[in-house]
């Protein structure tokens, strides 16, 4: 394995978040580095997801700042942050349930389709060409995630496992530099977990499936994985941060975390 230098991608600097008095996050400090899968674990309600929501702009921390590409993300609207190259999936699926799988992914290509109102209302011409171009990209994602059979199914009717997959694909379609994955394994059976793990690794390493779209071959180098399933985290994460009651209680490699007292306490001796 060739060593790549890991400079900080996102710097979370002492952020605190509270909902009407209730402290959800306190003085969180975190360096999300490039070229690694960084996992955030912790018991339920320990503020993992809240952190993601802060990064992707859905929550506005009262204190601290989140530096990405030299900008402070706090205060920016979510769609701006997405445009800056931070894609995400949601813990409790947020899909466009009325649309087909295909259209869900196409909707995610929004950022890259340039044709404006006029072109769209004429359709034939530039808009048409763009649609075709992006169909290919979307289809490659579908091929990558092996969801061809449900291509034209309405997402609302799909089983949970497949929906998760579609959502991952949708995040992928944003061609993000940083991918925030929120509890991808929740409610999955063994097989689905294996598949998803495989996909995540492929995304991280970059695929070599001879796709046309560069970003798929390149892959997403920086992945933040919020997960409850210890096994998976220990397998694929290179660095783990542990949250408890909105505080960071530990950080390190899987092995360091295994041994860490506070972590074991936080999990009340849960099998790690």
């Amino acid at each position: 394995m060739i060593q790549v230098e890991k400079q900080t991608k996102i710097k979370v600097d002492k952020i605190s978040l509270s909902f009407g008095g209730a402290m959800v996050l306190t003085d969180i400090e975190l360096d999300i580095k490039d070229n690694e899968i960084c996992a955030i674990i912790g018991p339920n309600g320990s503020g993992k997801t809240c952190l993601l929501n802060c990064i992707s702009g859905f929550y506005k921390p009262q204190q601290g700042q989140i530096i990405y590409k030299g900008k402070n993300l706090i205060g920016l609207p979510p769609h701006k942050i997405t445009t800056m190259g931070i894609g995400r999936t949601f813990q409790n699926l947020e899909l466009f349930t009325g649309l087909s799988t295909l259209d869900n992914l196409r909707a995610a290509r929004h950022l890259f389709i340039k044709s404006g109102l006029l072109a769209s209302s004429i359709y034939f011409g530039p808009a048409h060409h763009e649609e075709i171009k992006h169909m290919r990209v979307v289809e490659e994602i579908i091929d990558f995630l092996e969801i061809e059979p449900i291509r034209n199914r309405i997402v609302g009717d799909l089983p949970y496992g497949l929906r998760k997959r579609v959502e991952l694909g949708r995040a992928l379609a944003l061609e993000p530099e940083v991918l925030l994955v929120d509890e991808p394994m929740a409610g999955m059976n063994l097989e689905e977990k294996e598949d998803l793990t495989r996909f995540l690794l492929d995304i991280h390493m970059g695929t070599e499936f001879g796709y046309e779209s560069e970003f798929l071959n390149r892959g997403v180098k920086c992945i933040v994985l919020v997960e409850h399933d210890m096994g998976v985290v220990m397998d694929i994460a290179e660095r783990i941060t542990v949250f408890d009651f909105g505080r960071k209680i530990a950080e390190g490699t899987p092995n360091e975390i295994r041994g860490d007292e506070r972590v074991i306490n936080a999990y009340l001796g849960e099998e790690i």
Partner: protein
Amino acid sequence: MNNKSNFTAVGEEYPTLPSYLARNYLIWGDKVALRQKDFGIWHEYTWKQVYEMSKNFGLGMLSIGLKKGDKVCIIGDNEVETYVAAYGLYGVGAVIVGIWVDALPDEVVYYLTDSESRFAIVRDQEQVDKMLTIKNKVPQIEKVIWWEPKGMAAPEYKNNPWIMGFNDVSELGRKYDQEHPGTFEECIKQVLPSDSANMYYTSGTTGAAKGVVRSHSAQIYMRKLLNLYYPLNLGDDCHSMIQFASIGEPITGSTANLLNGAVINFPESPDTTEVDLREIAPRFHSLTPRFYEEIASKMRVRIESAGALKRWVFNLMLPIGYKVAQYEIENRPLPVWWRILKWIAWWTAFRPNLDKCGLLKIKYCTNSGFVLGAHTFRFYRAIGIDMREFYASTEIPIIATHVKGHNIKVGSLGEIVVSVEVRLADNGELYIRGPHLFDEYYRKPDKTASAIDSNGWYHSGDAVYIDDDGYIFYIDRVTELASLSSGQKYSPQGIEAQMRFGAYIKDCWILGEGKDYVTAIITIDFDSVSKWAERHHVPFTTMIDLSQKDEVANLVLKDIIRVNSGLPPATRIKKFAIFHKEFDPDEAELTRSRKLRREYMYKKYKDIADGIYSDNDVIQVSAEFSYADGTKDIVTANVKIRKVPGEQE
């Protein structure tokens, strides 16, 4: 030998399969040869492209040490790469050994060692892993070549010299071609008609699998004979889902592609086949009864579940279809009014129905393997498909068939095809001789000797009966014929085929050898039965629960009575039980070609096989049961034994 004339009639301007590849490159260069669905749309490959790709691959194989006459095994579903590889290998004179994708590791080991293959070309990670697990058992394999890159990026594969990518091989080939141009063409010339082209392992219903070696000329004669009865034109769409492991492949696929220029279409993925088949709309189907029965019951179930109007119209038209079919079967001219009715029925019921299941463009369907149940056969002809029996075996792929324009005897295998001679042995066994006979069982001279006698007769091992008009009627394998204690002979497979026609019956296992009467152990088709149960508000929890419901039993009973009506009273089904699970190839209960493996079944399920003849009406059966994710455990169930009313034992 009056056959000689027929040979010349068939003609032989191109002696080998690769020579056809070269011809097509010249005469059809920009015509479509293969069509693969990928990324949601159909990608077309012209003969030029296919030729180039095959050439590169073939030469690539040479440059990694393949010699003319080497055996190379192919494991993978049919895709463009499969065919490119095959054509490339034909070109450089290698012999293709097809192996079923779902073959168990031990089986693979056997095939590889028996065929002395030097290379393995496999589709994907799954197969590569399979190869890796058996690596030390097959030392003669020099390289494993994969073509589906999914999951192959991992270092343990990349850094393993034993494993190689399809494209890398082609790349080597491209270089090789630049260094010595014209090599491939030269190789093609080197290949002789008598050289072996393919090896097929006959599914082991009896003993260990034997490698049937077939020469180029044998393959080509096979296609030319087929063309006399089932001509295909340039650009006709075909769908070849039969893997290279079976003689069915050249019948539906490669030879049609090479000789006739039919286009082979490949679905996107196994899961989308059903959808893609409609888009392909193939012109020619050559399947086994099992598939036809599945399709037929699919139609029936989906029409059953339709609204009243739809059902009414279809059921109104079906009799017309049968009547018209009867005219065609008896080869009588169709009266005008029946023509009109036929037209109406076609447009109101049959055409739309065929359109739904993708059979609309079908020119002919041939059934082989064993005889198609008369009901199914008539049904297909009724709904407007030119269904014909087709008597074939791996050793000699076309022996007899129904002929358009002759009258069609339902239940027969049709008439002997031109250039084939037959002779009936005293024990009723059929001896055959013809130009497309196989060469030998690979490395089994004794077996070969016993199969092909000194004056070239092939002992088929089929017990048949030929009537005065020269129609062949299949009785059963000579070895498979069973007889009751009374000595009454009957054919289990025949009855099973009839049973399987039932929309709700998946499989059937007929017992009775040495017993006083015939009994049946039936497995229901869970999909259709559960749908039926929902529609009729029959509550159930599992397959096991459902299978023992009395309502379901009555459902099945209808079919038993139907089948019994067509049997001599002595061999009618007297008792039956509905099995609590489906028979499963992965548990070796069926062969890969989905035939029952009786001896094995009898061993495995002895308790019920005997119990059904005992007087107790519930029998506890315990069987290993494997879940989708591969985990297994023992399932025990109480299977009810039921009597068929009106049949005294």
